[in-house]
């Protein structure tokens, strides 16, 4: 993943949201999701307001609603599980459209679906408006240990290369008539994965040698660059600020 390339979740743009320094966006997304997570589930109006806030952010960042919806598939298994809760859950039963369901199960379903959707949407908007290397730089400026951000940087840089290397191996096998059907047929595929590990490890050693040749001392140089200004922090903090206010209000009026 070299410079200028984007990954699946990034939507190229030059909006106000795109221009915000990454550390303000990461912190703001985290604080917003915390506010959502601690909001009592009975406060349906609060979740409606959160959704409206996210829609506003998506509008400003020019991220299409269908794009977000398509990326929400990662939470689908948990949403399906949530839809089962009213039927398998215990406690008091209520009748909804002629079917007896668990009252607290319905609340639990709503709670999981609402919080998971809002949380995932915030993550999607963060990733859509911030390129991955920028997210990592933001994490670094937020004092996440350098080791984690440095390793993650290398991971992102070589991820596509590694995945494509495997695709080439699979294509070569398929071209020679390989057609695995069940678990026992996986030996060639798994052996290729083993080969892929060896190639990755050896590439790591080559990269290390190249870094040594360029004066690597064992510590990554600080490339975090200029920090965000007070105004940018204020702009980014407005979103979680409102969300935390809503969460507090929801607790107050409970």
């Amino acid at each position, binding site marked *: 993943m070299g410079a200028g390339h984007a990954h699946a979740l990034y939507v190229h743009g030059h909006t106000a949201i795109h221009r915000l320094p990454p550390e303000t966006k990461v912190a703001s997304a985290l604080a917003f999701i915390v506010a959502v997570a601690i909001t009592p589930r009975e406060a349906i109006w609060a979740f409606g307001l959160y959704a409206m806030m996210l829609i506003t952010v998506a509008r400003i960042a020019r991220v299409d609603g269908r794009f977000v919806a398509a990326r929400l598939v990662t939470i689908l298994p948990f949403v399906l599980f949530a839809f089962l809760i009213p039927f398998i859950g215990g*406690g008091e039963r209520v009748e909804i459209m002629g079917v007896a369901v668990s009252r607290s199960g319905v609340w639990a379903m709503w709670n999981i679906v609402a919080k998971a959707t809002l*949380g*995932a949407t915030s993550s999607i908007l963060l990733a859509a408006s911030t390129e991955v290397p920028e997210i990592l730089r933001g994490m670094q400026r937020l004092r996440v240990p350098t080791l984690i951000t440095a390793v993650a940087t290398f991971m992102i840089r070589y991820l596509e290369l590694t995945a494509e290397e495997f695709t080439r191996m699979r294509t070569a096998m398929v071209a020679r008539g390989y057609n695995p059907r069940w678990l026992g047929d996986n030996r060639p595929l798994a052996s290729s994965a083993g080969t892929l590990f060896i190639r990755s490890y050896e*590439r790591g*050693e080559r990269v290390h040698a190249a870094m040594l040749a360029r004066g690597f001392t064992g510590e990554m140089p600080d490339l975090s660059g200029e920090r965000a200004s007070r105004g940018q922090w204020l702009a980014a903090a407005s979103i979680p600020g409102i969300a935390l206010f809503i969460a507090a209000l929801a607790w107050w009026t409970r």
Partner: protein
Amino acid sequence: MHAPDGFLSAGTALATGALSAGTVGVALRQSKARLRDKHIPLAGLAAAFVFAAQMINFPVVAGTTGHLVGGALAAIVLGPAVGAVVVTIVVIIQALAFADGGITALGYNILNMAIVPAFGGFAVFRLIRRLLPAGGGSVIAATGLAAGASVVMAAAAFSIEWLFGATAPIAFDTVFGAMVSVHVLIGVGEAVISAMVIAAVLKARPDLVYGARDLRASQLAETRPSPIRVFLIAGLLITLFVAAIASQFAADGPDGLESVARAVGIAQGERAWLEPLFADYATAGISNAGVSLAVAGSVGVVITILVTAGLLHGVRRRGGIEI
């Protein structure tokens, strides 16, 4: 198993977050000591491999496919500390840059997908290697069983977290029974694929496999295919056994468990002081809360022992004391 935001209670998210941060901190220091200045590029490439390996779809039966989770495999190849760090980084980036798994769910997602499989899986690997003769075949068999066990352990760990932070009126024993029995099946796939991957690495670059670095070349050559078949059958029998037991727990809890509950000291009357610790939901609907708590307690103790054994292994190595 990338749980989304709000799936467990806020308190559980916070507690598991602190636990994960502490453990990863220890693992970070260990991996830095082990890989020296190579750690950044090597761990980065290993993380890229784990990430890519999770995207590979393996056929299971009739049109269904599965993919590697990779925690135990990473620990066996790279060592438990480096393995845990690498998978943790994969999980963090999946949450932040790929919206896969909640950001506030990172605490329990890292615990279940990186720490428990890496350290717990490695402890199982060490245990089985002790029982089997020294040789390449044993490493392959131990990898398979450890990888399978790591998936089941992760499912059990999630169920125990549910006991503390349930957000839905579903009793612990239902969650435990369902999670463990489903993950026994997933574990079989993980076991077979992990064993095959390690076999390929052992054949070409045995020096790269951390879990086999005590073996000489002549011992590594001992990769007769028979142990693999034996382990496949043994693994299947063990998983069926575990599934049978798990489903028993999920049903009503046989009488024998009552005595376990009493032995653990959380039977009926005595567990009253423990009650505020657990989510009302997870204990309210249970026919026999004492039994469930006993199950959760004993499973938790086993996982904790295994994870600690894996952690200690790394610390001991760092001190330079050979086992």
